[in-house]
């Protein structure tokens, strides 16, 4: 009896310490206030959901994974302060997604930090910043990207536009920062070769997450006579752009990167743009494999919004896999090496891998349109009764674009 008791006490002490071992911390640096807050908050819930799955299954190497949310207000300067804060709190992993200007600043900051602090390196997991530069001219060994780069997405969008003869006049409207500029350049270049007959009647940039009323821009689109719009807008900008369009009764086709975010779907329904709004994503809940649909339903029940970032699920799953493979979460160099070239079954189905050359995740992409739900489709958005429908699946092999990255690996 005594022995059992002693054993129990020992376990209480030891098992207790094992469970209470330092959690593996991931600093989440994204907007949690201001115009990007809705999408930032969505990203946080998404990653938290993925981390909860791991923790509920016993954590990683006996440790819990903890996300430290830090608000960067989509400001590159503020992001560096917040990243440093995360590192000071013991985080060896930083994750960020909203805004390529922030991503470029962060990747630079982390490379320098790692150079100065050997043995205490930090990894940077990017789940949504898609400026091609991040995996080309500015690529870094410490940076990994799970979202498809902007050029992969534009290639898919323009390949689809090639098959739509009704497009005659197109209007480009984008946010005035690195990603928005990348979208407009890519659109111009790719349309020039794929559909030289299309006339570009407008090429607009507006301030990032600062415009509260898009009516003047909508009036301009209307006046230009455009029949289609290409936009890389996200967050509040996208929601307000669609809202102003709906109010003015603008009837055009929208080719977008992020129409799926908060506020957009309501406006699309209000404008009656049935299957006239397209987006390009790495997962579509309505046509995903059963396991993904189950998670989607759970996520919606818990948070009341869609699981916008299937790539966030891939990110955390691969991170867990890499830590297990490396046998450590503290030697991030080993974790990074484990991630390079890693193959997984993607959250929404199909195979994907982390390309070693530039740390770009290669995965199947989906082109979707928004309209009344088909029979059997489970998920509508924002209680509109309308949902996303897959119109094309682009195999991962067809999404590959070459990289100019010359990766410098630490010894």
């Amino acid at each position: 009896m005594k022995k059992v008791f002693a054993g129990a006490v020992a376990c209480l002490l030891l098992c207790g310490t094992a469970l209470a071992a330092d959690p593996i911390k991931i600093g989440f640096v994204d907007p949690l206030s201001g115009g990007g807050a809705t999408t930032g908050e969505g990203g946080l819930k998404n990653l938290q959901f993925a981390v909860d799955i791991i923790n509920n299954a016993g954590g990683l190497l006996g440790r819990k994974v903890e996300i430290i949310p830090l608000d960067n207000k989509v400001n590159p300067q503020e992001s560096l302060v917040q990243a440093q804060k995360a590192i000071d709190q013991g985080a060896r992993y930083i994750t960020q997604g909203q805004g390529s200007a922030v991503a470029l600043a962060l990747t630079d900051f982390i490379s320098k930090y790692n150079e100065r602090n050997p043995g205490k390196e930090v990894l940077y997991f990017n789940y949504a910043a898609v400026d091609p530069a991040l995996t080309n001219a500015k690529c870094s060994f410490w940076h990994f990207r799970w979202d498809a780069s902007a050029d992969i997405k534009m290639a898919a969008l323009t390949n689809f536009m090639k098959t739509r003869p009704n497009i005659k006049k197109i209007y480009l409207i984008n946010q005035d920062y690195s990603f928005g500029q990348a979208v407009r350049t890519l659109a111009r270049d790719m349309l020039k070769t794929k559909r030289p007959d299309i006339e570009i009647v407008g090429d607009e940039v507006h301030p990032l997450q600062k415009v509260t009323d898009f009516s003047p821009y909508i009036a301009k689109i209307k006046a230009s006579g455009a029949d289609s719009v290409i936009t890389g807008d996200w967050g509040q900008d996208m929601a307000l752009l669609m809202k102003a369009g709906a109010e003015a009764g603008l009837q055009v086709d929208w080719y977008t990167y992020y129409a799926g975010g908060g506020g957009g779907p309501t406006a699309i329904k209000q404008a009656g743009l049935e299957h006239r709004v397209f987006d390009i994503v790495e997962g579509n809940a309505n046509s995903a494999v059963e396991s993904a649909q189950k998670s989607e339903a759970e996520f919606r029940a818990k948070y009341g919004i869609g699981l916008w970032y299937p790539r966030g699920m891939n990110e955390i799953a691969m991170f867990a896999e890499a830590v297990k493979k490396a046998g450590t979460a503290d030697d991030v160099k080993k974790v990074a090496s484990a991630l390079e070239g890693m193959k997984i079954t993607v959250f929404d189905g199909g195979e994907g891998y982390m390309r070693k050359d530039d740390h770009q995740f290669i995965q199947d992409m989906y082109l979707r349109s928004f309209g009344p739900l088909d029979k059997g489709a489970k998920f509508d958005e924002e209680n509109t009764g309308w949902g996303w429908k897959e119109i094309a699946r682009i195999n991962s092999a067809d999404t590959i674009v070459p990289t100019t990255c010359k990766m410098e690996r630490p010894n």
Partner: protein
Amino acid sequence: MLQLVTFSTLNGVLYGMLLFMMASGLTLIFSMMGVLNFAHASFYMIGAYFGFEISRRIGFWPAFFIAPVLVGLVGALVERFGLRRVHKFGHVAELLFTFGLAFVIEELVQMIWGKLPVDYRVPPSLDFVAFRLFDTTYPAYRMFMLAVAVAMFVFLLLVLKRTRVGLIIQAALTHPGMVAMLGHDVPTVFMSVFGVGAALAGLAGVIAGPALVTQPAMAALLGPILFVVVVVGGLGSLAGAFVASLLIGLIQTFAVAINLSMGDVFGPAVANAFGDLGRVTVAQIAPIIPYLLLVLVLIFKPTGLFGNRES
């Protein structure tokens, strides 16, 4: 083209009138008390949040009347128990007080309603298309905003020009010292003007909340523009504030519509000499044009368009 001009004018006038609802209070407070109230846009934000909170409980129309009154009360309290105490330490202290207050209000709003935009919607009774012109629809709610702003302007004009209170306020605008000498209770006048100014800003918030976005950053987004309006219009001049509000509303809206760059006007040779600056279009620099105007006005006509005193 006609379509673009028509809708840009409508949008510009609407935005201008919204600015005026706030600028009127700001300019009144400034000219009477000599305080540039940095927290003025915060009252606009409080108005929007009060409007949201009341309308989700008992409907939009009660909110439309109650919220501005509440904001006015908050404003009066701020004057009575905050600003009046700070007053004896001079204008700089007052300025710093309102500056700090703006941050406090923003933090409070974030603590109560969170950092995300709240779901403040256009009431169903106003959620329809007002008219259709050149194949573009114009929402009824925007017409309603315009009507409210115009009604408020007329009301303010009548009060100032036709009532005894207005007489005292007008006198205090130009000769604050003299009014006090004549035995009027200047502190109470100050308090009520501050309260009414806050209420007007609150009213602007209640009606702008559903059309724009009700979020903690809304005060910070609009605040700087208000100062431009007050300075460009002329300190202490309501007519100036009115003209400047419309002017800036129209400039901002029309600037968005103009695609000209220096290269288009002066030819590529000139544009290249300016580098990137030569290639940006007017539309791209639309957000900074009001500030450019502010700088120019301060250089060439420091009293503003209609002002007649410098401080």
